């Protein structure tokens, strides 16, 4: 199939030297995006000049320089606003925002929630390493309570944001999660994000090898990963585990992990994932699952259709123009009360 594609991953690589630390999770994500775009281009019939990568400030925000597409490296936290302007100015563009947990959820929190609320058709890739890397190791809004960092030598005393909860709380229509080292899954999610009309937020659990190594270690550990994460796909049973013998059921008002074939639970009792369900209840619970009580959910958790902001902006202008009495500036200057001297 890939041989039918117009582009190869190589076509999206710029001539700039990639300067992230060796072993940084960002390398994996860059690979996943460059791997996904040929498929996105194939499915959606996009040429390379339609892509724009926009970022704020932080390690991940260097991303646009490494892409051979249009790119804009903005200022700290403001990428959602810049991306909104780009998309509204030209809705035919495929706009991708690259951001980190500090950029998106601390300094840029306001722009982030409003982009999600408006449902502007951009794809936000949120690299979550739970630390400030570029400023060399201060805690972020997603650092776990009690995290010891340079600015919290005795541990943080604040509760972290859970990005999925925030997105759904802001009426988000698309939320997915991946793990940096799982390039195949990240790439698959990128394609889904691109296909979704509206704000698609993809949280990537990403490792900072220097300042917060192994913050997602329990999940990336190859030996036990399959027992600690669940990869969910629309229409499929929520099953996980090395032996595919564990699953999720709804027990009362909560999700519960059960062993299939034990305690009277069969595969029929296991929930089937419905990413298209408008009611955010189950999606919120899936997004909020944390290890060890639950496996951490990966994959497209929520994927709901709704009109987009950029379409609405454009359509309203076109609608008004259709019946406009004022056709040009001379009309404008001469309309209303005037008099002759």
């Amino acid at each position, binding site marked *: 199939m890939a041989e039918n594609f117009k582009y190869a991953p190589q076509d999206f690589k*710029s001539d*700039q030297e990639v300067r992230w630390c060796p072993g940084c999770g960002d390398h994996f994500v860059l690979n996943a995006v460059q791997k996904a775009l040929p498929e996105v281009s194939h499915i959606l019939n996009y*040429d*390379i*000049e*339609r892509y*724009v990568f*926009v970022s704020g400030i932080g390690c991940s925000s260097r991303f*646009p*320089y490494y*892409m*051979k*597409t*249009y*790119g*804009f*490296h*903005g*200022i700290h936290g*403001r990428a*959602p*606003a*810049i*991306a*909104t*302007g*780009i*998309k*509204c*100015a*030209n809705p*035919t*563009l495929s706009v991708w925002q690259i951001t980190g947990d500090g950029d998106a959820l601390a300094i840029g929190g*306001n*722009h982030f929630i*409003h982009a999600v609320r408006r449902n502007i058709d951009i794809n936000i890739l949120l690299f979550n390493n739970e630390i400030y890397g570029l400023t060399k190791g201060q805690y972020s809004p997603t650092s776990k309570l009690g995290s010891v960092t340079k600015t919290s030598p005795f541990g943080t005393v604040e509760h972290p944001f859970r990005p999925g909860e925030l997105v759904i709380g802001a009426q988000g229509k698309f939320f997915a999660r991946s793990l940096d080292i799982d390039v195949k899954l990240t790439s698959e999610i990128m394609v889904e994000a691109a296909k979704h009309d509206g704000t698609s937020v993809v949280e990537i659990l990403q490792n900072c090898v220097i300042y917060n190594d192994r913050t997602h270690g329990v999940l990336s550990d190859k030996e036990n990963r399959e027992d600690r994460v669940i990869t969910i796909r629309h229409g499929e049973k929520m099953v996980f585990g090395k032996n595919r013998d564990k699953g999720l059921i709804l027990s009362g008002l909560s999700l519960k992990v059960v062993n299939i074939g034990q305690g009277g639970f069969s595969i029929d009792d296991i929930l089937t994932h419905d990413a298209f369900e408008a009611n955010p209840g189950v999606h919120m619970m899936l997004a909020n699952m944390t290890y060890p009580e639950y496996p951490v959910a990966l994959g497209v958790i929520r994927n709901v259709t709704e009109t987009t902001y950029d379409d609405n*902006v454009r359509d*309203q*202008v076109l609608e*008004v*123009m259709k019946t*406009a*009495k*004022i*056709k*040009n*500036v*001379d009309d*404008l*200057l*001469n309309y*209303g*009360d*005037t*008099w*002759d*001297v």
Partner: protein
Amino acid sequence: MSEQKLVLEIGEVVVRFSGDSGDGMQLTGTLFSEASALYGNSVSTFPDYPSEIRAPQGTIGGVSGFQVNIGSTKVNTPGDYCDVLVAMNPAALRANAKWVKPGGMIIVDNDTVNEKGLQRAGFKTDNPVEELKLQDFKVIFANISNLTKESLKDTGLDNKSIIRSKNMFALGMVYYIFSRPLHFTEKYFETKFKKKPEIVEANKKVLRDGFNYAANIQAIPNTYHIPAATSIPKGKYRNINGNTAVAWGFIAASEKAKLPLFCGSYPITPATEILIELSKRKDLGVKTLQVEDEIAGICTAIGASFAGNFAVTTTSGPGLSLKSEAMGLAVMTELPLVIVNVQRGGPSTGLPTKTEQSDLFQALYGRNGECPMIVIAASTPSNCFDYAFISSKLTLEHMTPVVLLTDGYIANGTEPWLIPSMKDYPEIKAPIVPEGTQNYQPYARDEKRLARTWAFPGTKGLEHRLGGLEKDFTKGTVSHDPMNHQRMTDIREEKVKRVQEFIPQQEVFGDKEGDLLVVGWGGTYGHLLTSVQKMRENGKSVSLCHFNYINPLPKNVKEIFGRYKKILVCELNMGQFANYLRMNFQEFNYMQFNKVQGLPFTVIELVDKFNKVLEGK
């Protein structure tokens, strides 16, 4: 029948309408101004309103005012002091009595002069005339509220609607005093309330009853006639305020540049009306985004500019502070963008509804790093159109952002405007890169303007990356090289300086040389011009050098300054332009006249100052 009253023919008259914020004084003033303009007078207006939408009724804090100057020759200011004051309650009287000319006429709604009203306005006695020492003024106590009720009692309107019409009764009285025809305002009612004929009739009736009442009472000793102006250029006119003019100037530029107009903004007094007007102009394809904050306002605009729209953002002082970092991004990425700052009293929240010129340094320097920007200041309500157009042309052709400064006074003030024709405005040619260009270099420059070129995302083969990091001089990729940073800083500076070659020479009103050169900039023009005219009528050697181009300054400034014995810089701040001039032309001595009261200059205080300066005091 009343006896024939004395009609005084005069060249200029100032009227001030004042009342509670909810009394409709802005509308009353606007209708009087429009009727006068339609009659053929020259008109200049100044609304003066509180920042509270509905401050406690009857208190000084809630008083809203609207002053208008009408003349049979060109008037350039709304006037310092008024000939007639309308005060709809004791608070309005108390707040505005000091603005009435000695011996002037004051009309007060007597139905509000009661214990409660006087107390709320802070009067200590039950005799406001005595307390405010108005014995030498012609104070007319008219039962405006009750007469309005009487006038409309058979119309079937509810009590609230009836009492709300009392401003039209007062307007009717003023129309009588100034011999204004009623039909302009009657036509306004017909258009405004097209679907509510009963409201049209009620308004017409109360306006006429007010007019007749004034004609019948003996308290009004004389009426005035202000002949239509004859020296005004022929043509088609309309009224315009500065905020609307700015919005239309941008739309005009968008049409001439053949680029869609995009405005990212956040509401802030007194700039909001620009966003409101642009939001209405979807009929002309204007895209407006009211976003989550000031920063998003400018950042959406920068994004839209990158993507190939002509982008603007609108704000006032505190909003400009919030936009500073993004303004630097626009300078660094060398994208076209106009940032409008409608100045108000500062610092911090300051005086949101009052005028000031104290953001000049912020516009010039308020950013991190060496971050030069073109700065332009409009100086009258109607020339906001031209300077918005010029700002747009400069940013689009020179590929660097522009700050356009106006202020609360010219933004809200109105004047008649000889409607221009778009065929008289120049084309705007942005350096857009055509598809098919080989080896595109985003930071390559033209030699004349030093502008880089503009490639729109979506164009095949022009993929490039922009950003806030320093760029390599030739390749446009990220560079931390020391000499490259020096070179790029130099070229950004030089690029703005070169704009001097594309703006007109500075002009002087008055003599080529003389005793005193008055220097001003921006919205103080009308007051400075009127004051200088008055000095010259009295044979004094005074000239005016008023600036619209702030950065860069026109080429010939130094040569002008050298021809006068004294230079007096007048501005509504503590001396920012004077200090800017000191920095640029150190060889001259600059005297200063500064005012920061949230109010425009008055002609009286300016003339007084000029005389003192001439006398060496």
